């Protein structure tokens, strides 16, 4: 096995290029690796295509910072707080510039990434019939089911292969093997579909810990390009077993980014003026500690003994 521990700054610099299509958290509202969002903004990437079923505040920040030209997904906003102001400014007024939206529904985006992961050229679904989404997203094709006599329309969703996937995992070893639990959305499909995978691990553990439970592995370690040790990388989103959600942080962002100036100030304070995630955690200070999970509600063990 190859050691893959890397500084996040270095991982982002060496594995991401301008114009890449990027999955940055695909579990929906938990395990969003905001630490990677910050790093993409600090390094000033441009022309990114952000792919996610639910694009939360992370995508809104990338839009506002001018990193993102395109959004491929089913929903963009601020889940607990409302609309995404940068998203609206970009799509409605071209501030800071126009952003193209490739509309999907959750299920059809899931199928696109499933197809990308497992080499299927396209997937035929019965969703989105009658919806105008296939009109706004010309990648989708409405056609007839060749197995049925008479009319039986289906929507064909072509496979989608992201360039890079960033994922938050509860624990990983230095070789990129990781454990994840709780709902995972499209984590598995989107990262297997991706050309490169960067894991942000809340904790680095000995390889024996991961190897003790290969069914807890959601994406195979041998496909991972870099593993970065970033505690609370997902703040303010939750990570099951590690951190709860900092709801106020989402609301403050929503309130403070109503106008471009407010966003400029916010991004300066929380991203641009901060060198790395350690400094971000230091800035959060005691605030972060209130979201740390200290209780125990442990899983019953599974036995893999051979005799």
């Amino acid at each position, binding site marked *: 096995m190859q050691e893959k521990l890397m500084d996040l700054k270095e991982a982002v610099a060496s594995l991401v290029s301008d114009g890449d299509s990027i999955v940055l958290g695909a*579990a*929906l*509202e*938990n*395990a969003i690796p905001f630490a990677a969002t910050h790093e993409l903004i600090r390094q000033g990437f441009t022309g990114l295509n952000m792919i996610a*079923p*639910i694009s939360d505040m992370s995508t809104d920040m990338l839009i506002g910072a001018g990193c993102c030209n395109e959004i491929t*997904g*089913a*929903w*963009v*906003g601020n*889940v*607990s707080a409302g*609309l*995404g102001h940068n998203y*609206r400014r970009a*799509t*409605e007024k071209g501030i800071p510039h126009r952003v193209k*939206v490739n*509309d*999907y*529904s*959750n*299920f*059809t985006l*899931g*199928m696109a990434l*499933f197809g990308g992961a497992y080499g299927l050229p396209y997937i035929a*679904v*019965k*969703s*989105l*019939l*009658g*919806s*105008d*989404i296939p*009109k*706004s997203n010309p990648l989708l094709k409405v056609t007839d089911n060749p197995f049925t006599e008479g*009319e039986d*329309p*289906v929507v064909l969703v072509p496979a989608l292969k992201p360039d890079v996937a960033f994922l938050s995992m509860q624990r990983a070893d230095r070789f990129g093997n990781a454990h994840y639990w*709780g*709902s*995972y*959305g*499209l*984590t*598995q*499909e989107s990262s297997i579909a991706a050309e490169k995978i960067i894991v942000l691990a809340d904790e680095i553990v000995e390889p024996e810990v991961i190897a003790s439970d290969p069914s807890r592995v959601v994406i195979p370690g041998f496909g991972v390009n870099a593993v970065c040790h970033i505690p609370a990388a997902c703040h303010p*989103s*939750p990570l*099951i077993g590690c951190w*709860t*959600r900092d*709801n106020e942080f*989402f609301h403050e962002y929503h309130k403070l980014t109503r106008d471009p100036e407010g966003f400029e100030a916010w991004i300066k304070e929380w991203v641009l003026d901060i060198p790395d995630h350690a400094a971000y955690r230091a800035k959060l200070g005691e605030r972060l500690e209130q979201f740390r*999970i200290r209780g125990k*509600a442990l899983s019953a063990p599974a036995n893999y003994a051979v005799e």
Partner: protein
Amino acid sequence: MSLDYSTQELMIIASAREIKDNERIFVGMRLPITAYGVARLTHAPNAVGLFESGIARYEPADGMLYTMCDAPNQLGAAWTCGLIQIMGMLSGGRVHAGFIGGAEIDKFGNINTSYIGGIENPKVKLPGSGGAADIAAMSQRLIAIMNHEKHRLVEKVEFITSPGFLDGGDARKRAGLPGAGPSAVITDRAILRPHGPTNELHLSTIHPGHSQAEILENTGWDLKIAPDLSETPEPSSAEMDALHQIDKDGYWR
């Protein structure tokens, strides 16, 4: 003597009544998830709640949720998995009903959560479908929850994110959609239901304290009246007890 309840509490209880026992329901967040909790404690103890991120629950979460992925919704779940497994149950025809909201709904129950003012240069870019388009297409039936305002209940939505009966009649079936379409639209003033061969939404029940004239005034199309128009039944004390058990902090009061 009538019980004391808020409009939102009535909407929650009306929503709960749409859930039958043993059903699998996409419960969404906020009002519908509370409705699911009430249904479980009253007439539907074996209903199962599904969440798009990959969660199925027998019981509502114990604790406040800001998003469906929060820790209390995962602890003690029946299943935590991926989006494809859960949304796939819907696509596989295994989901009985789903709740969705929206910015606009029209007289055939089509819902817009995408664009206001055109696709190319929208006046307002709404967040988009999320799972709503899938739920509307493939859930066996659909329950919409809306604020009853003239600019929200419109003659024809300008963009169909989530299909209802499309142009009415059998248009939905002809389009190849597997689910049966909207069965109820629950607003803060009334409940509308499709009626007759056109499947147009008709005024079905009026919430206590509201009038037919007020409802017609606040609907953006010439709303027809169902032949069996009645008043939305008030919450029973059992329903209110269940709701208070779920909504301990009185968020919806």
